[in-house]
């Protein structure tokens, strides 16, 4: 496939608040090539956002401890100095956050906030370049340039998300991380935002990590998918393998698909997955999913499963490995 852009090797993140240690991310391995789109799927609290913040090294300084490496173009982001990171953020990697309503600074004009990111990374260029670039990117995201003198509260949720995207893509970053960009928006606006993102991605050739719990979105936007559960990647691979129900899947993934209504088939009742996400402060022994796993075996309760390649997509589950051998 293409040239390697991002490699996450055995990443673990722990938060300590009031003496309680929460294991948000446990031994995650991921790779992303240039121009490739990776979808990260999982319930809330599965460690998706923590991983994303790790890539930008924006984890809270005092309370977070990290192990493992995140290599971006060969540079280990976790150990990079603040100065180096400031060069990377905004220019090489940029991020769109979940809630557009609070992600824009209420007291500065929209044009000003977009202009900031351009000015930071193009110090030598003059004001006209910045203004011109701001108008250009605004048109790209479908907002009339005249409105750049207005304040965030003058815009609707959808428009604000477009501004966030404008800020993120203002300096043609190599990697764009979108943390549930459409969750806070209603469906019609979602479709517009996603189609715009797809066209921009194709046009600028940016690599994208799309974090969401919306499987439909992943299906028609991403090249490959990773499913996270309580801080671990329990299954990852190309879209075709994951959405091919004939392949063996991790019971959690099966459950996930089971809880999506299929328009084609008439199903009386969806089969939800019982129970709740385990508390990151007291993770269960062995496979983290075993308390909720219908096919739970004794080994699952004691031993943590290995991540095994099964017809070239990775699964982390004793049952799948055993079935393979059998």
């Amino acid at each position, binding site marked *: 496939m293409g040239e390697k852009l991002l490699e996450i090797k055995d990443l673990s993140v722990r938060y300590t608040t009031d003496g309680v240690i929460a294991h948000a991310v446990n031994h995650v391995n991921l790779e992303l090539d240039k121009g490739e789109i990776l979808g990260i799927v999982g319930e809330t609290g599965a460690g998706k956002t923590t991983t994303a913040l790790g890539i930008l090294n924006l984890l*809270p300084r005092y309370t977070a401890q990290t192990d493992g490496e995140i290599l971006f173009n060969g540079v280990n982001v976790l150990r990079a100095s603040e100065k180096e990171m400031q060069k990377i953020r905004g220019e090489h990697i940029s991020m769109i956050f979940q809630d557009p309503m609070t992600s824009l600074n209420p007291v500065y004009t929209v044009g000003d906030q977009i202009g900031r990111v351009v000015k930071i990374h193009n110090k030598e260029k003059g004001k006209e370049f910045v203004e011109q670039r701001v108008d250009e990117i605004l048109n790209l995201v479908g907002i009339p340039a005249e409105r750049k003198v207005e304040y965030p509260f003058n815009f609707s949720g959808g428009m604000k998300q477009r501004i966030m995207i404008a800020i993120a893509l203002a300096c043609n970053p190599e990697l764009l991380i979108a943390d549930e960009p459409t969750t806070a928006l209603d469906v019609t606006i979602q479709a517009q935002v996603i189609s715009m993102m797809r066209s921009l991605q194709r046009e600028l050739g940016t690599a994208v990590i799309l974090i969401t719990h919306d499987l439909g979105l992943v299906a028609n936007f991403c090249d490959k998918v990773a499913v996270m559960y309580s801080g671990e990647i329990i299954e990852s691979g190309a879209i075709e393998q994951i959405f091919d129900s004939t392949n063996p899947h991790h019971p959690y993934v099966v459950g996930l698909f089971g809880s999506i209504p299929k328009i084609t088939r008439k199903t009386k009742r969806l089969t939800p997955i019982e129970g709740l996400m385990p508390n990151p402060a007291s993770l269960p022994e062995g496979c983290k999913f075993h308390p909720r796993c219908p096919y739970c075996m004794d080994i699952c309760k004691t031993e943590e499963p290995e991540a095994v390649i099964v017809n070239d997509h990775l699964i982390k589950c004793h049952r799948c490995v055993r079935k393979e051998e059998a």
Partner: protein
Amino acid sequence: MNVQTMKKRGQFAEVWGRLRKNKLAMISLSVLLLICMAAIFADLIANYNNIVIKQNGAERLMAPCAQHWFGTDEFGRDIFARIIHGARMALLMGFGATIISVAAGLILACVASYFGGVVDMVIMRVMDVLNSVPALVISLAICSGLGAGTWQLIVALSVAGIPIHTRMIRSNALGVMGNEYIEAAKSQGASTASVIFSHMVPNIASIIIIQITSTVATNILMGATLSFIGLGVKPPRPEWGLMLSSGTDYMLKNPHMVIFPGIAIILTALSVNTFGDCLRDAFDPKLKGKA
């Protein structure tokens, strides 16, 4: 200020749990309890008539010694006994005046936010007017009207505090009013009083408690200031502010007359302030967390 709508008992138990762990809160609470004990058992420690206001020419202006731990004042009265009885006065001024003004503020705020419309407008306009008069000016006006004295001082401090409390509680009460369960209770035909007291008050309890602790310290200081300018407590009643103001004449030669009342005021105000801050943190842990 998100209002936890958890079970009331749960919240207080949880808050107490957090407080207990906070060392600073425990120290300030113990100091406060010490002062309260002094105020309550003042008569046992030193009988009012024959020690606190008993004058003794021979023992005038004695420096702190075995017999008089804090020395004696210009009338030969034992300063230690007077500070103990002064604690009673300070707590009366501090907590008494605050509770009155917070209670009045609570009633006004609840009535205003519950009825809304004209009632709310009238109460708020009155509060605006009172609020446009600086607190000490209100006290001065009341003291000049009612004359100097203990209960006049309490009235002055309470009235000065009412506008701020009403405003603060009302803005939070409006927050609670917006919640659905108030409409639900009203729709089930709950009586006005029950809606206010069973639903609104518990939810703004946390604000009220924080409100009380922050105002107590201010009232103690304002009471001492009013006594200093001669409008507060009348001699011979022992009150820290008064002891300070009469002590200033003797400051150069016998500083003990100024040091001990000063420390008493600072200790009380400091412990109330610190406990108030810790309480606020316990009620709203988010604030305390790391950046």
